[in-house]
């Protein structure tokens, strides 16, 4: 692009100052807190203590990965089928998928308690049939369900926007050249929908791996995710801010490494993927 851009770069300076103070400096302060004790003296104790929370890190990554995979498997056909409808139905469905996203996610998570609880809707129904009660709430399954439910719109929407812009003649060409449905998917649809998958996976994995509300409500007190651990120390007061920052720092580095690897594997997109 050799088009001459309009404007002066100076108008970006208020923003550049803002982002330096409120994006870069906070991260530096977080590093500072991670490497000091409560009196401000240098220490590596916080970082070496991270090992104690291995389990929380492990469970968080495991749950988030499973939830992301389920979300992808559920969302992919949904997005694909959406593109097959006429334009006005597509637009309506787009809105239907988006509306829950604009509702408070705390409540949406909370409503699942009504459905899953021991005396909840599913178990009431089962007991009328003479079955049950099943233990649904306070299980790892419930936590993963909560993650899938809360974040599935973030997977459907980018997939849909990539697929709806896809050149239909490519699929037809594949068909003309004798591809069966699976080959068409593997050789054409899948590679072309990759940018949508990458942004979808990012937008589901990052909030899932760092959540603390979903696990508190649907997992009972048994599942301590990494988000719960950070929130727990935060609530204990200023004495524990150092360890809370150290855990946050490790979480951040871990997420960035995951995203970096994924972007490398998925082929880097110049525009930074699809936002929505």
């Amino acid at each position, binding site marked *: 692009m050799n088009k001459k851009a309009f404007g002066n770069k100076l108008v970006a300076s208020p923003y550049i100052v803002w982002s330096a103070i409120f994006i870069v400096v906070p991260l530096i302060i977080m590093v500072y807190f991670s490497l000091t004790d409560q009196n401000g003296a240098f220490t590596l104790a916080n970082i070496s203590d991270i090992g104690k929370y291995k389990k929380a890190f492990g469970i968080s990554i495991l749950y988030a990965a499973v939830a992301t995979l389920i979300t992808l498997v559920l969302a992919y*056909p949904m997005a694909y089928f959406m593109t097959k409808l006429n334009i006005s139905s597509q637009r309506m469905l787009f809105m239907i998928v988006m509306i829950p996203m604009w509702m408070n996610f705390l*409540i949406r998570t909370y409503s699942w308690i009504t*459905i899953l609880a021991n005396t909840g809707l599913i178990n009431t129904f089962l007991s009328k049939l003479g079955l049950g009660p099943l233990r649904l709430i306070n299980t790892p399954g419930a936590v993963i369900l909560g993650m899938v439910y809360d974040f599935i719109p973030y997977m459907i929407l980018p997939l849909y926007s990539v697929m709806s812009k896809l050149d239909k003649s490519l699929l037809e060409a594949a068909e003309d050249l004798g591809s069966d449905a699976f080959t068409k998917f593997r050789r054409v649809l899948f590679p072309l929908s990759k940018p949508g998958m990458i942004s979808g996976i990012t937008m589901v994995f990052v909030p899932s791996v760092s959540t603390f509300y979903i696990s508190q409500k649907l997992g009972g007190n048994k599942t301590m995710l990494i988000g719960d651990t950070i929130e727990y120390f935060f609530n204990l007061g200023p004495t524990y801010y150092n360890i809370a920052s150290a855990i946050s720092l490790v979480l951040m580095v871990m997420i960035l490494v995951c995203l970096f690897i994924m972007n490398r594997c998925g082929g880097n997109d110049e525009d930074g993927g699809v936002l929505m």
Partner: protein
Amino acid sequence: MKLLSRLYIALIILFLYAPVAVMIVFSFNSSSSVWVMGGFSTRWYEGLVKNTVMLSALEHTLIIALLSAIISTVLGTAAAVGITAIRNRIAKKAVMSVTQIPMMNADIVTGISLMLLFIFFGKLIGLDESLGFATVLIAHITFNLPYVILSVIPRLRQTDAHLSEAAMDLGCTPVKAFFKVILPSISTGIVTGFIMAFTLSLDDFVISYFTCGHYQTLPIVIYNMTKKSVTPDTYALSTLIFITVFVLLILYNILQTKSEKKRTEIRRV
């Protein structure tokens, strides 16, 4: 195949809306249980109107959402214009990478890091309580900015730079050329950015949770409510929020279709 795909779409919609339906039904429960329906009643809605904690939280949420959306839209639009004018590739890349940090980072990390900043500087200038209105507002502006910038930049790229040159050749000052030529052509990006900023701010829980101090927004109050015993009043509140969002979105959609129709008509003329 067609039937199967319709069925699949229906099942996903059922999954998305089952908890919403449950919430609406139980918000009209006459008993205070969220598992057993007692009978129909609107008492939880009546209770909400008298709930001063909730009402003031709603006011806080709206103030923060509106202010942060306006400020981030102005700051972000200026930033987008400035960033596209940066020639140095490395400088541009650096600015864009920093811009993406709040989007890529987990909310909890953004929240904690901002909280530490506020407490750190609060201590430096000797404040006992550094968290409050100003800190939530700053936090919200900070996480809204990338979304505004990234929705304006693509529009700027599509805009023909020669247009503003032409305007200046015809005697416009650069500022006037911006407002007369560039601004109208990037307005859809600005509006999208504003709407995104507003809704993100309205819905934010995690970052507000760490930065709000005693200035409680609605999600924080809801969080505190769901920590205690479970009563249908939370459901009543969310039903109201749901209906508001639903109506607003439908209105927005109708307006959009109308303006699109108008545009195609103009093109035809």
